[in-house]
């Protein structure tokens, strides 16, 4: 017997890489500048919390980036929301840019900057390299154009589960097609919304898009990505708490206009039907999980958590498993903790939910992206904010200038808002990556969302009036929060 052992090199999961700094497996958040702040990307098993701005626009943009990146990397998506229409959100994902387009855009930006900064008197400084406050792009991930929506063809390859806790009627469901125009009737949304009191009692989860690999287009054999859905259905059969119903289908032609959905009883877990359109697998529940008493006061948390756990318990998301079909699951929950979630036990339920979710996400190859209206939560209970931050790995607050006096202030004319890093925790390691600076601002350009180092414009004239005015407007630097407090060192 020899001591020779064949070295088995594990195939990396699509859209991930190992961080040279921490040795962690990381994946892109979809936004290159956010990736840079996070140290290359989000570590597998982490939860990133984006604290929404008042108008909830910028956090949604980041959520779209997160989902679009997952879709492009052929990763599994889970999108849950009570406030938004998840189908609509998926339809409006930004369009990816090709390498040539990215290069062209970067060149254009450099030229524009050079023109803007052209010096006539101290012209020798023109030879110096430009200070680029928009930090270098990350090595993983894609670039997206916010001006255009993702191609319907690309969307048809999405493997996404959506949850919005609405009762859906069968006809609406069958009409739903994520790849189609937004004019299409929406499942459980728009006019087809059921009575709100009834909708509390029903939930549905849905897998939209084709599970076929683009390379295998036209083939009749079931695609490999179908495995999680089938396994989920099998698990659903055994789990009384989540009576998911399952249907499946195959993509036979690139035509994406038609869907076929089959709702079945739990006894008939799988039914494969060939259609001329995108496969849409629906998993509506006719009733809330029964058989076991609720763990949460608000049954919505039970249902949402059941669906997430059912998805994450799939073997393809098992860490360390040496499988060919290993994949990453991106869980995106938008506006969690919004007033639609309120009830008498809101705080208790939310903390319980986040604690259990943390356990689930940590134990598999998944990343979670949550947006929360923290300004509303702070008004509900201010002590809830640090408790929530403690349960996530990254807490990033987006403070928009919209509606505030900073919007017109000359010091901030370049930016849309400030970005506050409240928490960055070390996962599976000792030290946490800290970005070059924590004084960050963001701007929502026409085509992209950019995070930059905060700097004041050089031409800001110093007058006594302006200084006095800016004293209460300028952001307080991180070092020296309160002048009354003596330094710790």
């Amino acid at each position, binding site marked *: 017997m020899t001591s020779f052992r064949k070295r088995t090199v594990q195939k990396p999961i699509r859209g991930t890489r190992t961080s040279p700094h921490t040795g962690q497996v990381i994946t892109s958040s979809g936004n290159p500048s956010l990736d840079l702040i996070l140290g290359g990307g989000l570590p597998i098993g982490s939860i990133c919390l984006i604290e929404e701005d008042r108008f909830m626009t910028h956090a949604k943009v980041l959520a779209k980036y997160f989902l679009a990146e997952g879709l492009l990397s052929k990763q599994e998506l889970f999108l849950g929301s009570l406030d938004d229409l998840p189908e609509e959100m998926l339809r409006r994902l930004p369009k990816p840019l090709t390498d040539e387009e990215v290069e062209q855009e970067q060149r254009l930006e450099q030229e524009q900057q050079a023109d803007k900064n052209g010096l006539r008197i101290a012209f020798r400084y023109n030879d110096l390299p430009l200070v680029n406050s928009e930090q270098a792009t990350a090595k993983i991930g894609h670039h997206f154009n916010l001006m255009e929506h993702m191609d319907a063809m690309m969307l048809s390859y999405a493997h996404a589960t959506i949850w919005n806790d609405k009762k859906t009627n069968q006809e609406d469901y069958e009409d739903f097609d994520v790849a189609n125009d937004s004019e299409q009737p929406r499942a459980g949304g728009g006019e087809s919304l059921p009575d709100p009191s009834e909708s509390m009692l029903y939930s549905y989860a849905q897998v939209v898009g084709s599970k076929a690999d683009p390379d295998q287009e036209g083939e009749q054999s079931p695609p490999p990505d179908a495995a999680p859905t089938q396994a989920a259905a099998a698990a659903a059969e055994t789990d009384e708490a989540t009576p998911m119903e399952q249907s499946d289908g195959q993509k036979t032609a690139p035509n994406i206009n038609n869907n076929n959905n089959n709702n079945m009883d739990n006894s008939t877990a799988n039914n494969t039907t060939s259609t001329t359109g995108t496969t849409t697998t629906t998993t509506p529940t006719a009733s809330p999980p029964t058989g076991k008493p609720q763990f949460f006061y608000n049954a919505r948390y039970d249902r949402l*958590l059941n669906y997430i756990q059912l998805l994450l318990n799939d073997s393809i998301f098992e860490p360390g498993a040496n499988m060919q079909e290993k994949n990453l699951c991106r869980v995106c929950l938008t506006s969690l903790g919004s007033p639609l979630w309120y009830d008498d036990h809101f705080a208790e339920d939310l903390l*319980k939910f986040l*604690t259990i979710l943390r*356990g689930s996400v940590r134990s598999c190859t998944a990343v979670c992206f949550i947006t929360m209206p923290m300004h509303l939560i702070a008004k509900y209970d201010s002590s809830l904010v*640090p408790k929530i931050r403690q*349960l996530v790995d990254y807490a990033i607050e987006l403070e928009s200038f919209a509606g505030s006096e900073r919007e017109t202030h000359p010091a901030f004319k370049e930016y849309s808002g400030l970005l506050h890093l409240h928490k960055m925790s070390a996962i599976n390691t*000792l030290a946490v990556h800290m970005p070059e600076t924590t004084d960050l601002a963001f701007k929502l350009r026409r085509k992209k969302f950019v995070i930059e180092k905060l700097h004041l414009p050089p031409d800001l004239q110093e007058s006594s009036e302006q200084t006095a005015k800016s004293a209460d407007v300028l952001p307080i630097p991180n070092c020296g929060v*309160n002048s009354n407090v003596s330094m*710790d*060192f």
Partner: protein
Amino acid sequence: MAASVLLACGLNEQKLPGFVHISEESNVDGSFLISCILGQRLRISNAGTLLVCLQNHYQHYFNAGMRLGYNSNIFLGKTFNVIDVLSDMARHGLSSKWLRSPDGLTLTDQLVKDIREQLEKNYPNRSSYTILIDNLSILINLGASKQQVQQFCLDLADLAKAHDNLTVITKLSNSDIHPLTDNNVAKLGNVRIQVLRLKSGVFREVDGKLLIERVLDDEGSYSCEQTRKEVLYKVNDRNVKIFNPGEIGVKV
């Protein structure tokens, strides 16, 4: 690697105090202390250790330990045991015993029961035994009342009193939000380590402050001496550095 921080906290000796409480303020991460203490306990031959994972799962402590220069997997199942509540909840979902106890026990009762079982099994064979609980605020998040958490800590403190060479180390996050629980739990022991953030802001060369309070009471005497020590810490990739206040300044 972690010797300096343990020295500063007075936890570098073989025989530790019966009950040690770590208070962690909001917006500061003190889980490095658990990793440091764990490494120190594992290195002592024939010393038993039980880790209750509530905040992070076991894999985190293993990876952090590798950075600090010890491999906890070598000791796992021998001198080292783990109650991984977080992974169990992930595996069994809402039907996990920590969320729905089949015996009708509360979460804290279930935990005490499991800790007692581990103790009965392992304590007789070990020269000393350490129970590490990271962290108590997760119990509150999962629905345990403050009274239940206090009772849980009281039960553990009783265990420490009843057994020689048994140390219980607890950690509570958001201690500024749960001051009552934090103080009551800290009163159960003689050593309290507070992990505090820098009040003056964020500094690249220092992560936070450790405030170590020890109550030195001699048995039989009525005098009680309390010592307070303050050090600054910086968690690096493979070690934790300790500074005295005033030792470092801003480099220009």
